[in-house]
């Protein structure tokens, strides 16, 4: 498992999600803290491509040996891609939560929602 890290170029949601915004789309995933709290991830249940997600509401499920948890959307939009590789290698969420462990790509319906997210320093200051 990777060491704790919170890349500076990402935006963070207090439910332990990150967003990497690239124009009108964003890549979403869960933070190092989230995967560490979950423990070994054994299954990722993604949303369907084309479905709509809403900021602050669940859009996927991640199952570890300890629990099944909802993944909360940091921003709203339409799912344009899901990380199919996680079906066979869900452990990528533990090993590389900001890289190969990405979950979905979203076409943003309201890019201004980024103002509700925080930088890495603010997010990590909330972790106890």
């Amino acid at each position: 498992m990777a060491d704790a890290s919170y890349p500076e170029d990402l935006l963070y949601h207090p439910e332990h999600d990150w967003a990497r915004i690239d124009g009108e789309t964003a890549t979403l995933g869960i933070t190092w803290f989230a995967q560490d709290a979950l423990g070994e991830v054994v299954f990722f249940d993604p949303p369907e491509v084309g479905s709509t997600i809403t900021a602050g509401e669940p859009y996927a499920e991640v199952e570890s040996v300890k629990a099944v948890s909802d993944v909360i959307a940091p921003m709203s939009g339409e799912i344009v891609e899901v990380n199919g590789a996680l079906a066979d290698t869900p452990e990528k969420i533990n090993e590389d939560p900001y890289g190969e462990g990405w979950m979905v790509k979203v076409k943003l319906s309201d890019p201004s929602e980024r103002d509700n997210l925080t930088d890495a320093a603010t997010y990590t200051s909330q972790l106890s």
Partner: protein
Amino acid sequence: MLDAIGVGSIEELFDRQIPAAVRLGRPLDLPAGMAEQDVYAHLRELAARNTSAEDEITFLGAGMYDHYVPAIIDMLLGRSEFLTPYTPYQPEVSQGSLQVMFEYQTAISELTALPVSNASVYEGPSAVASAGYLARLANGRSRFVASAGLHPHSLDTLRTYARGFGAEVVEVPLADGLTDPAAWAAAIGEDTCAAFVQQPNFLGAVEDVEALAAAAKEAAPDAVVVGAYDPIALGILKPPGECGVDVCVGEGQPLGNRLDFGGPSFGFFAATEAYLRRMPGRIAGETTDVDGRRGFVLTLQTREQHIRREKATSNICTAQALNALAGVVYLSWLGRHGLVELAELLLQRTHYAREALTALDGVEALHSQPVVREFALKLSAPAGKVVARCQEQGVNPGLALDDDVLLVAITEQRSRADIDRLTEVLGAAVAAEREAVHA
């Protein structure tokens, strides 16, 4: 204790805590107390009013069947390791319990030809309804299509559950004893969550499950096809896993559980791998320990109530472990060939009985479909009265449905001589009732 909390009496406690407006203000309307010996005598008298399946020649079935329960089942169920423990909250300590669950699941999986089985649920109807909830979680839709050939208790339970999570149940009628294929196909559409069929159906008829499942998948590719099966009939019928059924459920009572006035029994629940993570209840898994020895665990527990709470597929997953144990012991006792022989025997006796009874005056088959162990008759006399007349002769001819329909079940405990006796008694009862109408 009253002293400790500063209250003078029980009455004062109630006065201070319970508003006068909601109190009854008089004693409960109950009879006076009885001495223990009197209670015993009273209960004996009540119990004596029951008629057990051993007190008459019974052809009752309709979902629960009077099969012989071999002594080995009582012997094993009586062992305190199985009889006394509560649900294993530290499951891996109870390797024996987990192994039983695993063996049971393996047997159900082989019986249904479906790769995944849970460790059992309460009984047949709640298994049917839980399959509906599984489907609801899997595809998010809210319209169930159910054959009218489902057991009425299953339909009722499905409707009750469906109301709870905002789904509707559309019933497809029977035509000549079978789920009407045209109505079935017409009822299923893109918005269908799950489609339910029972095999054999409530009137005993063998459905063409393969065709019904295919029609359902054609109309709604990701609708869940649920088959409610009689496990004994699987000794002779094609297994659901080979008929396009996604989730197979059923009443487990015929497997080594006595009638016991309706329960407890258990429900079995098996599915394709696609629904593994939506299964209700618990699943035991086989693994190896650190030293490489075979061991058992409760697997995928995270899906269920003690962790997922309101998002679990089921919150009644207290497995009927003891009843399911009876089920797996029964299947082991019968063996692979024994189950086939049993089903073949039932098939022969059932056809013998159907031919003999439909040859009687005033008795005809309600439908002409193939049957395995149960069939419906149409009487030209009130069925309830005919049943009462037969019972006076020590024969229970079956379950009266509607005004003139009788559902007759056969088990291996009903000999040819018993069937001949039924023919004689039923013929006389129908004749007497027709006479009474004309008189």
